[in-house]
């Protein structure tokens, strides 16, 4: 073997650290209440505009589950001035795609384009949001696509597992228990009128925010935005967080039977915690140690030691209201119970014994260091600034973000984990071949085991 000409066995010493500052955000509020935030980032001649509407699926009544998502989808159906095709041609003609995403907390309308086209792009964005017409033909088409997507979800083991886990974790009536895009029976009857009344209630400048990031001149933007959104009016009153109740108090195993499956899709979780919890930063550190990084306890055990899976992650679904905490992985059928046992072992051990000082240091260093890596693009920056609007976070949130992470102690990490990770309350959902996996899972004696047929 080749000899090295110098001692290669020690990792190099890092050079001098270069300061990173979150880019300056210019804030203003328009007369109609729209919260405008502008960030100049001039590396490339590009811009992202992101309109954040307080129109998340959480606020939709369960009888119309999926309405916020469907209304967002159907924005492409045309405006008072343009048919669906004319609208698409106008946007794409300036190289701008219009993206609409709807989650539990917000509907986000985004355009990215070359900076020189921003004026045209903003005008089109305003037209789409303020003057959509939801023609019946277009609305029905978009609804049929959503219905077909629901059929697709029902045959994909991964989405089946996610949807079932959400249902088994949350009590009846909690929105988080249903798929964010709704069900066949709730979407099927929806019409353009439902979308129009949803928009009337929720697409309002008061409570919404517009974030513009890119190679732009701040002074001109305000005039531009005023011209596009000035005539818009209305306000959405912010709602207080409500308690999220679990379906079960004690741990259970729910098998969703998929005969002949070569893998089991596993989800283990329970009701989690809100984005605005005081434990937020401690939990970021905790989750990094448990299953939020490649070198997490779960991944090193289940993947790098046992080879049970291609990868395993744990995740806190931080939302305005308490989103779920959960672990997810896909494992070979034959090792299903072994994988659940090992995952449960790691969760319990971390809860009982706490995190080591070195693990806390390493996890903190990782998430502190990676922060600027996730802020390179105009759309990453826009999303980050948008979070301030969605979650009502303070203006200095990003400026102090890394300091607050650095301040997290070993004790705080362990205690936050004990408060928010509760192995005795987990719903363990396994989508796989019940004939193969039921007996081994029962032998783990984790709690009642129930087998459900795939709908």
């Amino acid at each position, binding site marked *: *073997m080749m000899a090295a000409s110098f001692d290669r066995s020690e*990792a190099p*010493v890092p050079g001098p650290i270069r*300061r990173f500052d979150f880019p300056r955000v210019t804030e203003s509020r328009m007369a109609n209440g729209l919260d405008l935030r502008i960030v100049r980032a001039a590396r490339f001649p590009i811009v992202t505009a992101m309109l954040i509407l307080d129109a998340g699926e959480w606020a939709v009544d369960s009888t119309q589950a999926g309405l916020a998502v469907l209304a967002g989808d159907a924005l492409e159906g045309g405006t008072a001035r343009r048919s669906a095709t004319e609208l698409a041609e106008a946007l794409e003609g300036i190289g701008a795609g219009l993206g609409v995403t709807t989650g539990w907390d917000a509907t986000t309308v985004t355009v990215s384009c070359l900076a020189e086209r921003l004026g045209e792009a903003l005008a089109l964005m305003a037209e789409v949001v303020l003057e959509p017409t939801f023609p019946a033909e277009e609305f029905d088409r978009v609804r*049929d696509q959503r219905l077909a997507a629901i059929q697709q979800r029902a045959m994909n083991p991964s989405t089946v597992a996610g949807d079932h886990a959400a249902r088994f974790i949350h009590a009846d009536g909690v929105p988080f228990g249903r798929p964010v895009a709704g069900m066949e029976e709730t979407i099927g009857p929806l019409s353009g009128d439902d979308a129009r009344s949803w928009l009337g209630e929720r697409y309002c400048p008061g409570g919404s925010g517009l974030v513009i990031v890119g190679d732009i001149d701040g002074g001109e933007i305000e005039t531009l935005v005023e011209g596009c959104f000035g005539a818009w009016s209305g306000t959405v009153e912010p709602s207080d967080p409500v308690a999220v109740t679990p379906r079960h108090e004690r741990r259970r195993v729910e098998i969703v039977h998929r005969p002949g499956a070569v*893998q089991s899709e596993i989800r283990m979780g329970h009701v989690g915690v809100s984005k605005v919890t005081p434990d937020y930063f401690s939990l970021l550190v905790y989750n990094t140690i448990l299953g939020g990084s490649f070198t997490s306890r779960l991944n090193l055990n289940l993947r790098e030691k046992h080879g049970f899976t*291609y990868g395993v992650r744990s995740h806190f679904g931080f939302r305005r209201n308490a989103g779920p905490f959960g672990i997810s992985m896909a494992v070979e059928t034959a090792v299903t119970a072994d994988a659940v046992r090992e995952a449960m072992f790691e969760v319990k051990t971390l809860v009982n014994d706490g995190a080591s000082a070195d693990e806390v240091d390493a996890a903190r*260093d990782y998430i*502190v260091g990676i922060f*600027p890596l996730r802020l390179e693009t105009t759309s990453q920056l826009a999303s980050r600034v948008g979070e301030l609007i969605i979650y009502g976070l303070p203006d200095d949130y990003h400026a102090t973000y890394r300091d607050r992470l650095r301040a997290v102690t070993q004790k705080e990490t362990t205690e936050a984990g004990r408060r928010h990770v509760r192995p005795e309350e987990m719903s363990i959902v396994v989508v796989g071949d019940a004939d193969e996996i039921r007996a081994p899972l029962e032998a783990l004696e984790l709690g009642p085991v129930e087998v459900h047929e795939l709908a």
Partner: protein
Amino acid sequence: MAVLSIPVERYELDNGLRVSLSVDKTTPVVAVNLWYGVGSRNEREGRTGFAHLFEHMMFQGSEHVAKNRHFELVERAGGSLNASTWFDRTNYFETVPSHHLELALWLESDRMGWMLPAMTQEKLDNQRDVVMNERRQRYDNQPYGDWDEYMQAMVFPDTHPYHHTVIGSMDDIAAATLEDIGDFFETFYIPNNAVLTVCGDFDPESALGLVERYFGEIPRGEDLPPLPGDPTLEPSIGRTVREVVEAEVPLTRVYMAARVPPYTDEGFYAAEVAASVLGTGRASRLYRSLVRDRRIAKDVVTFAFPLTTGSSMFMLWATGLPSVTPDELETALDEELQDLVTVSEEEVARAVALTETQFVRGVEQVGDRADMLSMFDRYFDDPARLNSEVDRLRAVSPGDLKLFTEAFLGTDNRAVLAYVPKGAA
């Protein structure tokens, strides 16, 4: 005016390693990216999937880096890292806070020069299991997950190195040995078969010194052996090849593919623009026709695979709404392909405008930019070509699309793969 002006300096070490340096001090982060000229096309019979399995083994430590240490060090530095295997290449990359540049160079050089002493049967057994689970998760337990396995076998003859997929077969993955690891490493993981790009916040002079220090003493390897099988290819399939697969899928889906000029050929730009006119955005032909007007498809996708050996592959697919038959989808797709002989200036302009925005967005992150620079270095021996790529797309005219369509998108050069829900056929 060119929309991009990314600076790049190009060097070559004595051992043949090509090095591109591209400085951008906007954010204190730096990307290190390596492209090795080896991929699934280099795999011998009985060892499909090996290039990818080998990529996994590259993370299992090297002589001076213990197992898991590679990940631990990069994550602790606040970096992100990964790798991927493709038909023609394998890439390895990390983005780290800029003061950790030397760490990334040390790790990448140690596995380029000193990987083998760290290899053990236990590590190989472990990663074989991981890769088999990757295959199960992405191919076997996933609706339509194995489409490319069918498609590649239909578009490329069994003598051609693109006949099999990157993931490979379970049997071949299981058959891999430590001896294979040694042979593969000695043959392909040599500095004269790699390009290295550093992109982001660094001082070029000191970075070049570090590259020389860490990589300079790795010896040049022998010239690569010829590709296995027969890489030459007729430009056309010569007929329509078809296959119907009854599977656990919710909705009928029809895939279509054609052989088109390779990525490294001027003719590929027309393929890219054609794919965009057909399927990028809601004003595109397939979206407008199949999704919006005729309401037979739930979604449509088109793209041109960037492959370099003999031919590349032009791909499209449409997922049918419930009760739509594969024949209806195929007929509709065929009509749109035939109609592509007549394209307006406006359509081409839209396709190029969208591609241009995507292209700029695709280089915003130093990691993505480094990967593009490595690619242009590897395929064209010219990383700076990245800056003029949009101009080449802009030069494609409706007339070029007509010629491209007539030459490559007819029924004499087509593979059609239909997935139908079990019990519905």
